[in-house]
């Protein structure tokens, strides 16, 4: 009998077959985060992104509208452009210099008369369009040129994501990083949405928020989560915030949703963070983090840093005391909640191949995990589809 991990077979977390089917059925059929709006700041700028099986590039036209195309030359299929860049009016494939305008029209075929003596219909050889849109300061692409709108996709969950306006905040470049976790992408998602673990794995790192009063739920495949400040932190909240506020003072707490598939947000009174999950292999996942903070002067940042320093001086520490730690790099003694999460994900993945693995019952605070597994099943449809 197939070994189960709640709603999914354990194999869903380990096999190449599941990985390939998820790439087809989930990541090639949904809106994919492609970057922040400011990543394509002016006409001629472009970026590219992998959306499941599709490499898609996004370019801004002179009318300031974004266009998205499949990054495939219509001649021999060569990827047309590199990751990021700026062009004036045209995109040229490096292989045979076929050239397209920013509307995707094929405008030049070198040596056309001699190489194609019978003629070539350039009109039928334009780049294949994809869909692109901007929502909450983020660019999204969809491989299908006419997908359901972002309003249809995110409309219902939108009201649960906090009052933040990311487009008005400034990126904090030092916080931008990317790393790999040796675990299946769903293990990483499940860790992100597991309410039960907050009080335990992060007993000493995230207790400025009151996990017992968390409110969470689902809108379609999207998970939303909010929790209020803990009593200690909330007592002098305005003083304790480490950086200047980014939302009106009547709003407090942390909003930590997980948008399908694998786009985590983490927003609080004073910051807005992205946690982008990209599956690389059945047991390997890339994470990209970006942070935005208030558009305020460095003097205001220093002032708020000073005001809050007393609270943070005594805050936190490792989960394990130093005498229990393995060595100086032990994530369990790091006092860094991200290191704690990575450690937990990788330790869980290690056991998935063991013949003695048997998953215990899901706790109340783990209900988001079983619900996310159901969302996966909904997208995967019947096996073999």
């Amino acid at each position, binding site marked *: 009998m197939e070994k189960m991990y709640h709603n999914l077979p354990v194999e869903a977390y380990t096999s190449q077959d599941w990985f390939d089917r998820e790439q087809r059925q989930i990541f090639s059929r949904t809106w994919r985060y492609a970057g922040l709006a400011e990543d394509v700041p002016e006409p001629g700028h472009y970026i590219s992104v992998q959306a499941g099986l599709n490499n898609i590039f996004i370019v801004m*036209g*002179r*009318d300031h*509208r974004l266009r998205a195309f499949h990054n495939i030359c219509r001649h021999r299929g060569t990827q047309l452009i590199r990751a990021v860049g700026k062009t004036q009016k045209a995109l040229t494939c490096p292989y045979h210099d076929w050239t397209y305008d920013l509307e995707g029209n094929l405008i030049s075929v070198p040596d056309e008369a001699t190489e194609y003596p019978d003629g070539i219909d350039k009109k039928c050889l334009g780049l294949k369009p994809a869909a*692109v*849109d901007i929502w909450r300061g983020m660019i999204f692409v969809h491989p299908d040129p006419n997908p359901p*709108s972002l*309003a249809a996709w995110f*409309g219902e969950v939108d009201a649960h994501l906090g009052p933040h306006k990311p487009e008005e905040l400034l990126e904090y470049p030092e916080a931008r990083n990317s790393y790999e976790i040796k675990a299946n992408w769903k293990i990483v998602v499940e860790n992100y949405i597991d309410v039960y673990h907050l009080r335990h794995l992060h007993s000493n790192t995230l207790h400025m928020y009151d996990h017992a009063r968390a409110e969470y739920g689902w809108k379609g495949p999207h998970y939303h989560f909010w929790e209020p400040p803990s009593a200690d932190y909330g007592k002098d909240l305005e003083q304790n915030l480490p950086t200047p506020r980014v939302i009106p003072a009547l709003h407090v707490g942390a909003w930590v949703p997980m948008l399908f598939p694998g786009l985590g947000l983490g927003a609080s009174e004073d910051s807005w963070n992205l946690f982008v999950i990209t599956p690389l292999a059945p047991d390997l996942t890339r994470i990209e983090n970006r942070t935005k903070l208030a558009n305020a002067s460095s003097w205001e940042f220093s002032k708020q840093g000073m005001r809050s320093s007393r609270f943070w001086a005594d805050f936190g520490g490792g989960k394990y005391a130093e005498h229990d730690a393995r060595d100086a790099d032990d994530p369990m003694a790091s006092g860094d909640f991200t290191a704690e999460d990575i450690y937990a994900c990788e330790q869980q993945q290690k056991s998935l191949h063991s013949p003695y693995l048997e998953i215990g019952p899901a706790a109340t605070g783990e209900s988001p995990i079983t619900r996310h597994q159901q969302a996966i099943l909904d997208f995967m449809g019947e096996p073999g589809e």
Partner: protein
Amino acid sequence: MTHNFHKLTIAELQPEIDGAATTVVFDVPQHLAEAFRWQAGQHLTLRLLIGGVEHRRSYTISNPPGARLRITVKRVKKGVVSNHIGDMMAKGDSVEVMPPFGGFLLTPGPLARRTHFFFGAGSGITPLFAMINTVLKDEPHSVAHLIYGNATAKSTLFKDELDALEHEYPGRFSLRHVQSALSMWSWYRPWRKGRVDADVIQAALSEVPPIAQDVQYWICGPGSMNADVKAALMAQDVPTDRIHMENFGGITEQDTSVEGCSATAQITLNGTTHQLPIAAGQTLLEAMRAAELSPPFSCQSGVCGACRAVVTNGEVHMRNRAALEDSDIARGEVLTCQSVPIVNELKVQFT
């Protein structure tokens, strides 16, 4: 769509911009409510007998669907109908009105997420005003930006209503006034001086770059404004299938370079097929009326689109095609009031 006239009663009639325009609100009786349902951007045709002569005019409905049936008629110098409406008509009068139609329309989608740019001038605001209202009310995930040209603040139609909309929908509607004749006696300064031209368009597009990336451009103004705005947008690489326009209240040049030949036409109208001759230089509409058929028509200048039909066989020359989009023409649609045959046999189908 029916092209029969119905008698409607004027429920309200009031002057606008110091009497230079007239707003007329019609009562629609219950049994005509279905026939008089409209989409933002569509127009009404009025049939009036003035001094014993029949006149037909099309006026855009200046309210969004769901509101009261309303047109706003700007006076045209020496204009027979616009001045008759402004001077002679009153509340309670009965007018012959054809149900709404027109292909320049904005159909709102409750889940559509679009950025709409509206470029209007003078009385060209009327369809845009209905469209803006319908976007704000019935397309909640979309935004609208209006770039609006007028001579002066005083001659600006719907100025107060537009200000109120900007106040009511601060994140979703922006308003940019462009005025050609600034008053020395007022402190009021519009967003830009001059006309809605290429510079103004470029400035607007870079001031409010679209967030929602499904961008649509709607143009309605007099004279050459539509063609000028369209050219300016295309110079910024806006694809033509995103540009929608209707010529308004001005002269559109007629292309009379082709005279047309005599022909025999097989015309299917209201399910019946008629065989009739067309004389050289005669339009399809003229030939049909001479043969005592009752084809739909209204403005007879190629602007309103009431007389559109599909040529399924043969070819015609259109003197003016303002009411048709390129995609309509690709489907074989023609304006019968503007079409002269250039081959001797035609087949024409009214839908």
